[in-house]
């Protein structure tokens, strides 16, 4: 089906409005809030701390443990039952993998670093917003990182390649393909890639390229958020 105009009036390669803030949870070692459109994610980092049971420990480095959770009232329909489910566990795991190439925790062998990601409001793209928030929170915590991680969904709505699908687009009656990606902005490498839907190889390549361009814009928002906190501290 033809998709000639986006439901919310954006250009096909245009992201929703973003807002990022670093240092939003005082108790945490590092924290951040990332909002894209109506999707709002908060991430907080705790650790490094001792990891038990012992067999989970990594001898050369700390283990990164991510925990993705949607608040009970944050879904677009009925109340989400509290607690982990198959979906949240899988998302937590792929988020961990998205950070593995950039995060150097070798200073803390056998320990664990916990990243908690909470969604307050959702309008699609939650795992990507979670990654953007977690990336800022880890940087805020001061761990050695080769790069930030930027994430966005790209894909097809009808016959059109778009970036940053919102919920009405994901549910588009003419069909939609949702491809969440995470990218390391300095090298362009992809650290998370999933796909839901049906798409040709050509369109897939186009979508990923569009997603990578979008990630560069997210990177700028992330850098500005970190500067906003740390530039202030330097002045003070």
């Amino acid at each position, binding site marked *: 089906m033809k998709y000639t105009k986006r439901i919310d009036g954006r250009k096909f390669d245009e992201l929703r409005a973003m807002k990022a803030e670093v240092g*939003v*949870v*005082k*108790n*945490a070692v590092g924290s951040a809030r990332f909002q894209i459109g*109506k999707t*709002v994610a*908060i*991430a*907080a980092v*705790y650790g490094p701390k001792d990891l038990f049971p012992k067999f989970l420990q990594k001898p050369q480095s700390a283990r990164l443990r991510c*925990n993705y*959770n949607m*608040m*009970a*009232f*944050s*879904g*677009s*329909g*009925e*109340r989400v039952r*509290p*607690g982990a489910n198959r979906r949240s566990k899988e998302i937590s795991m792929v988020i961990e993998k998205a950070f593995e190439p950039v995060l150097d925790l070798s200073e803390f062998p056998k320990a664990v670093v*916990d990243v*908690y*990601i*909470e969604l*307050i*409001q*959702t*309008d699609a793209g939650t795992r990507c917003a979670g990654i953007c928030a977690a990336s800022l929170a880890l940087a805020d915590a001061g761990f050695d990182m080769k790069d930030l991680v930027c994430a966005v969904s790209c894909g097809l709505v009808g016959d059109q390649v778009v970036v940053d699908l919102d919920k009405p687009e994901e549910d588009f009656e003419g069909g939609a393909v949702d491809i969440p990606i995470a990218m390391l902005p300095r090298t362009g490498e992809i650290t998370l890639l999933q796909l839901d839907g049906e798409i040709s190889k050509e369109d897939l390549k186009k979508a990923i390229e569009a997603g990578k361009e979008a990630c560069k814009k997210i990177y700028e928002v992330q850098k500005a958020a970190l500067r906003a906190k740390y530039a202030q501290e330097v002045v003070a």
Partner: protein
Amino acid sequence: MMVSRDYIESVIAKQMRIDGRKFDEYRKIEIEYGVSSKSAEGSARVKIGDTEVVAGVKLELGSPFSDKPGEGSIMVNVELLPLSSPLFESGPPSIDAIELSRVTDRGIRESKAIDFKKLCVREGEKVWLIFIDIYPINAGGNLFDACGLVALAALRDAVFPKLDGDKIDYHVKTKTKVPLTKLPISCTVWKVNNELIVDPCLEEEMASNARLSVVYTEAGEICAMQKGGDSPLTSEEIAQILDLAEIKSQELRRHFK
């Protein structure tokens, strides 16, 4: 910052508090409505100093209890997110989370702030169930009062979704507010080193050995209480707490005007 219990007690003994407040002084309170207005039927954020909590209201249709066929109900759930404090852990709800949920629930339920009969859709078959889910974002002391305030704020913000026969259309909100007729306000008084204080910061809370939460309606009726902590309270202390909590609850209620 973590300071020792001895230090907290020594400061209290000098009739002072570590952050310079008076014994009966709350930290700055901020209430914001609609923090999840796309998803939830009602939502709010409350900050008390460093403590921040969010709450959302979801409405569902369910069967009534067999002994109350013409009444809907509420369910309050507090989850102590490990995101909000290094002291909280993942897993099933801790006893602290359950206590917070139940005390917050009681304040609303027993004050009859919500007319459950107005939640009836078809007697004996379909009633509205109100779920209030509360999450701390930063746990910095006095979650009891923060949870009480944020639950009320989210309820004040809540409207019914559209009802299409027996199906709820969550994408369409009506203008009908959830029937909240009273504002029961929880005020918790904490005993630290034989002095009574309100709104402890986290360190004061951990140095406390007894607390009493009192929920007052605007008419001055007490509708729920909960004593906590390991130490006993004398009748005189309880009387003092009731007076203090009454004054403070009136003060807190002004944030809803």
